[in-house]
């Protein structure tokens, strides 16, 4: 009897050991997780590590919209050289895993100054087919970031898709973005990972190429390809042009009503 009992205990211990270790590994209460990736790593490191971990989004184009203060001009690079600048916002489709450097000019109150930020696309969105242009990654070059970069600071922004299950309960206006400032010693990528899923890293420094007419392949990080995208129509402009109903909410008088079904009711394109 004792032998049978001991054998049962031994068997149960063998069965329980992997389960308990699994629970310990997946426990969300583990205090310290060593993040191999850091937003302070050189451009391209995070994207390549993401590609090794999950190659599914590799090779996909992701819509990106670069916006900034009024009058800001952005020039993308192609075939090893910068193209003529265009007024922001500039919407393009960029390759996931690529590092894009673009030139920013016509900065407010700083005539003649120019910056060369980089944008690292580390993940993509899974928008409904045909609606990719409506949900670009918003890359906002704020006036403060540009001013700090011109003073010599190095501004890093990790842009993430917020987890809607744990969304911040605050109403944002269209185009407004929640910004969380972290210390220079913190890992911005780790903080963004807590809020959602990081999709891009914007780095704004004051580095300027020594010779714009020379070989810029290294400076442009290989000059990855990009694609033009149709611009999603602005609803406010459509309303102003009379192409879209104002959509004011009808006040209810508290009495039961029957709503008339409208045929061919327009929807947001």
């Amino acid at each position: 009897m004792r032998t049978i009992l001991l054998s049962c205990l031994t068997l149960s211990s063998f069965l329980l050991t992997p389960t308990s270790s699994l629970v310990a590994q997946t426990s969300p209460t583990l205090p310290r997780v060593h993040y191999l990736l850091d937003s302070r790593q050189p451009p391209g490191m995070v994207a390549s590590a993401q590609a090794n971990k999950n190659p599914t989004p590799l090779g996909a184009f992701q819509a990106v919209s670069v916006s900034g203060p009024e009058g800001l001009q952005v020039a993308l690079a192609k075939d090893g050289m910068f193209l003529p600048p265009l007024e922001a916002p500039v919407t393009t489709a960029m390759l996931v895993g690529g590092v894009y450097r673009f030139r920013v000019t016509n900065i407010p109150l700083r005539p003649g100054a120019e910056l060369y930020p980089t944008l690292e696309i580390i993940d993509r969105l899974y928008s409904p087919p045909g609606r990719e242009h409506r949900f670009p990654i918003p890359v906002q070059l704020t006036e403060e970031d540009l001013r700090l970069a011109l003073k010599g600071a190095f501004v890093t922004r990790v842009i993430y898709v917020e987890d809607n299950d744990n969304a911040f309960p605050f109403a944002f206006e269209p185009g407004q973005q929640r910004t969380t400032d972290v210390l220079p010693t913190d890992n911005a990528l780790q903080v963004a990972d807590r809020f959602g899923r990081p999709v891009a890293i914007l780095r704004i420094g004051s580095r300027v190429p020594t010779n714009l007419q020379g070989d810029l392949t290294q400076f442009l990080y290989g000059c990855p390809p990009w694609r033009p995208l149709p611009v999603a129509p602005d609803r406010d402009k459509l309303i102003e042009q009379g192409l879209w109903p104002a959509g004011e909410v009808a006040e209810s008088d508290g009495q039961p009503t029957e709503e008339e079904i409208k045929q061919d009711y327009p929807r947001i394109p």
Partner: protein
Amino acid sequence: MTYNPTRYGSDTRQVALPCRIPSLRIAVALACCCVFITTVGCGTLLPYQQSPTSVGAQAVNSPAEQMIAESSKIVPTKGLAGEAVEKSSENGVVPQQELLQIRTVAYNQPPNAAVASETYATEDCEYCNSSNPSGYPLPPCACGQSPAGQLVPAWDRQEYIFDGGDQEPTVMIRKDWSSAGVNPTDTVVYYETETGKVCVQPTNRVPIYAPRFGSVRQIAGVFLAERTQGAMRVHQPVVAGSIEERDVVGTMAQPLAPEGQQQVHLLDAIHENIAGSLVDGIVPPHGMSEARVAHEGTEVLALGTITDDEIAELGEFIQNAQTWVAPESLSIMMDGQVAGRLSSAKNPAEIYVYEIRDKCALRVCKTASHSIANVGDTVRFTLRFDNAGAKAVRNVVLSDNLSARLQYIEGSQQSSVKSSFTLTPNSVGSQKLTWELEESLKTGEGGTISFDCRVR
């Protein structure tokens, strides 16, 4: 402002806009998943389902993708993007007209159809024919290359706002008719049947594609490091002021052993007492003479069941009943008039026995006006409920706990039935909407409730 495609000559094709009206109808049809209590529980709609096509027939990675791939057995019809690309790539070159056709077809498909989401990949062969000096992995294309490298469309639940259903922990109803467990994004209706049975029914789960972005900013640089390079202060280790001494345990309480043991005697034998079990429904007639109950031996009266061999006998009993009402029996005189006697010569051909159980049979359906939305858009939710049961229900309460991404627009709720509306803040910074119907719902009755929310 965007790059003009014709300015740099990189892409001269125009992008086909999606077909709007069919997409709207299909999206509304997808979002409307009626839930029947008697047959189906809480139905959850995936944002859109994909099936492995010839274009995107790569290995499915995550369990969620496997589930989607297995659950959606959508066979792509002729003319879909996948088949067209395969057919065209036989010759190695895709004609321009065919590419545009592929693109247009792909855009016109509903979100749940078998369409490769990488529509950029099939429209241009510029990078396939180039030497790719950048070294970056380029997207697959149809320029004579195998489409096996194309991607399997996937989805991320973080990009969706869900509303409806009943997430864990499930909803429970207290005795004071208040609810517990109505979590954010839950939408349930609870009510009471005629016999007092409390029923809780969740609605279907409506997904809305509405990703919201945020950013984490980190500012570093030389001018900021200047402040930290100089030693502002020195952290000096503080010597412990007092030492806490711990005494050695002098005494120890020893657990006492039991002085005696009370023995419990086991049963020597087990007396079995198995009585015959009664059959439910058997109600034998008591206290009635055989002369009055001449047909007590039939099962229809004793057990409530009708057998085929007793139908003729039952008809005879009905004839007997008519015979028993004879003129020589007692007559009733009322105001000088003789009570009329109603008799029928018709015999019952078939007898149906209906058993109406007390089921929870309120059908609830939740729909949303938009399947995709940006921040600031207004989405209208509509709740349709019907009493699909055979009995009336009362104390019907509909409760919708909104997500943190949705904000109820004041004064936008409308109800087709008389109800009292309550708006209370919830735990995620949004609101919880509650409608209490003032009247009970009879069989076949129903109503509609709609309200507007702003995506924030």
